[in-house]
């Protein structure tokens, strides 16, 4: 199919890219723009590994045509951190042991980030419902839910945050 040039706004940067009308946004992100953080694990909108934000809303990039994304603001997992500085949610995932194999993590983060923007302190049920479109095979979800809950409601006595921020004190420092 003949390719045409479009401009996408991805992670606050304009990106010129040649696409076929039937290219999915996921294909364009991964193959053309080298943004491989978004994963392809089912290609049919079930697993949630390809979740990105389109104008702030979580969207399955494997079910979205690249052409549909023209004129919208796209954010991928690569755009969550501010340079090397992780977002609170990303840090919370690390601190709470919410990452195992890491394949579902980008999609999980994007769904959770969208939830927290709508509802900054969601309860357990709300979190589980918001993440129901993201399949994780490793964690049993408990630590992911903890990580999201903690981002919304930081607690001073959380053992995981206490250990991670300064886990090992060096003598003399």
């Amino acid at each position: 199919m003949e390719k045409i040039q479009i401009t996408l706004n991805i992670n606050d940067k304009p990106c010129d890219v040649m696409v076929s009308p039937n290219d999915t946004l996921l294909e364009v992100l991964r193959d053309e723009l080298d943004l491989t953080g978004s994963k392809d694990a089912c290609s049919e909108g079930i697993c949630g590994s390809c979740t990105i934000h389109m104008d702030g809303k979580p969207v399955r990039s494997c079910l979205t045509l690249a052409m549909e994304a023209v004129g919208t603001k796209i954010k991928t997992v690569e755009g969550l951190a501010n340079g090397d500085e992780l977002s609170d949610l990303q840090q919370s995932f690390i601190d709470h042991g919410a990452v195992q194999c890491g394949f579902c993590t980008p999609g999980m983060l994007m769904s959770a980030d969208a939830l927290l923007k709508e509802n900054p302190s969601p309860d357990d049920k709300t979190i589980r419902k918001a993440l129901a479109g993201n399949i994780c095979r490793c964690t049993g979800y408990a630590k992911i839910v903890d990580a999201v809950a903690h981002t919304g409601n930081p607690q001073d006595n959380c053992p995981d945050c206490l250990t991670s921020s300064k886990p090992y004190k060096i003598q003399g420092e």
Partner: protein
Amino acid sequence: MSDYTIVGKRMPRVDSRAKVMGKAKFTADIKLPGMLVGKIKRSPYAHARILNIDTSKAIALPGVKSVVTGKDTEGVKWGVFAYTRDQEFIQTQKVRYIGDEVAGVAAVDEETALKALDLIDVEYEELPPVFDPMEAMVSETELIHEDFPNNVNIHVNIDTGQVDENFKKAYYIREDTYVAPEESYFQAEPYAIVARFDHEDCLEVWMPNGGPHMKSKPLSNAFKIPLHKVKVRKIAIGGAFGGRSEICPVDYICALLAKKTKRPVRIEFTREENTIATRQGHAMITTHKTGVDKEGRVLARETTCYMDGGAYSSTGPIATSVPFLSMEQVYRMESVRYNGYRVYTNKPIRGMIRTHGRGFACGLDIQLDMIADHLGIDPVEIRLRNCRKPGEYTSTKSYVDSCAMDETIHKAVEKSGFKEKWGKLPPFHGIGIGTNSVQTGFPMGIRGGSQSFIKFNEDGEATVMSGVVDNGQGNDNMLVQIAAEELGLLPEDIHLVSADTETTSSDPGSYSQVSTFVGGQAVMNAAKNCKEKLFEVAAKVLKVKPDTLAAKNRLIFVKDDPEKSIPIKKVVRISLLNFNSVNAEGGYWPKVDMKREWVKNPYGQMCEAFSFGTTIIEVKVDPDTGLVEVLEATAAQDVGYGINPLVLEGQFEGSIAMGGQGGMLTEYHEWEGGRCINPTMLDYKLPLACDMPPKINNIIVESIDPKGPYGAKEAAMSIAMSAAQGYSAAVSNAIGVYMDSFPLTPDKILAAIKKKKAQDEKEAPVKK
């Protein structure tokens, strides 16, 4: 207690930063210059003879760079053991399941490769297929493999003690049959492989694997090139659960396409291919006959299991044994007879999976509950009376050193309130207990041991080399924690080079739950040797004896006078100035019985340590819909020593999800003939966040194994398995029917409730 600095601590994993930033590279993320796209042509028939393959139209398609068929393979066959080499990498004679590999294509893009697949003409002669293992054993039709009579692929026979005599002595005997269909891994990452031959004709490959050295050797054999010319590279891996252990045909096909085209080739599986054409869990029909004395102690047991093995052997001898071995480890059974039959059928290939034999284990546990019920004993008591104690031998003659089986039961019972709840819950509420044990290693011959190398850099930081692979369970972090602990460094000072066959020594990988015990211990020993060298240099500077020194927080100091210290970095530099590099090696080889063999001699020391786990589940069943709501899960495992409690908890919780929530409530494959009709995530019901119990209690029990590193052994597998048992027991308890067909889907639950109601009314028609 211990005064460890780094191990035993809740440490966030070293690999998680790259993963939350989307920077971690998985196989499908690799892009190499000139890379082609590979695709596999698969059989549409369950059983058929290949008469002819015409690839001329495909090869003529512009953009197609190579088409390979069985003719290009020189008839190479794969099998884990010499006696199970029954799978050609590309079929030349016949196809044995829907999905069997018949050709491979490399093209400039996916669209072209897919078009080329359609242009390959394969002429088949259909043969009568067989899909049921019981039918396969008596079928008169053409054998699936001509040298395996009755389609029996593997027969494992274990017979110890006085089974027949003890049945005569038994006070009560039960015989029950339990069934469970196939389940699948559904790793988050669909299988993918990238292969290329480099400028020195070395084969370089990236793929999810359960052990890079387990992939390099068969590839070296298949291509008849030296082992050092196969470089399996490290790559992030999106889950394994037993399903990435062996070589699979696509590894060979991808490498062959790379060889033919002299270009890198990438093959990515679709979700359907990952389900159909990697491995699955075995369907099983298991009959347990158990004889007990008046107190419920098992006197004799006879178990017969028929396993649907699919089209090829895979890890058949192991898969036929492990369900039984786990049970003989967790429960004393001095007089036991086991016959396991793995039968070929025209269905996809079955291999090892995390919950080895859910129908097998759940059946044995449900039967134990039935026996307890008959004798008026509670489920906890009957387990305590039969469970494994330290210092005993299993029925197949493995010595069990560390064992805190009963502690896991006691702690889980206390935490869950089992005693208070048992028999007192309202209708359709239930509680159940499951117990299990898993091997920390299998006898793996030449690949059973691991060796590690450590070198210090002049900045005082260290590079650690190990063949251990991380499938997502946290092995990389485990190695870093151990190295940092032993070397007196901080985790961020350790640079890990692992899972790469060019730079690391042979290692069993994550296969058989042995990474910490063997690979971790090799790193520990290498680090100890390295530290000794540092101490010799430091001792001269500090004018003390080396054995008075300790290392911690980047310093070497005198144990009794910690103020007297020297930075490790300085010791390294002094050493280098004296023309001595600071490096060391260390290894670990478990003392197992090398004569033990899965089929020919299933007796002797299996591994050096066993884990023991208990899971208690509380559920509520909706009698109108048959839906199960899990209220609480409590998981307690004897892990030997918890190197990282944060990681362990995650492993326990994941085990509850896969073994219990999915494994016992929703996960199974459905078939239409030989075609799997639910190969994708849309139809195969994996547990979601909203399905999981709101509360999971994790209890880490430490028995400090005398041979494990810091006392550690296998972690969380006996939770995955006991979770299945806990779920089935809890649902059975809730509905008052002992279930014998798994998983416990709403249709089965509703049918059981209905049947029980009818029976109750018949037996007590005047009951209020």
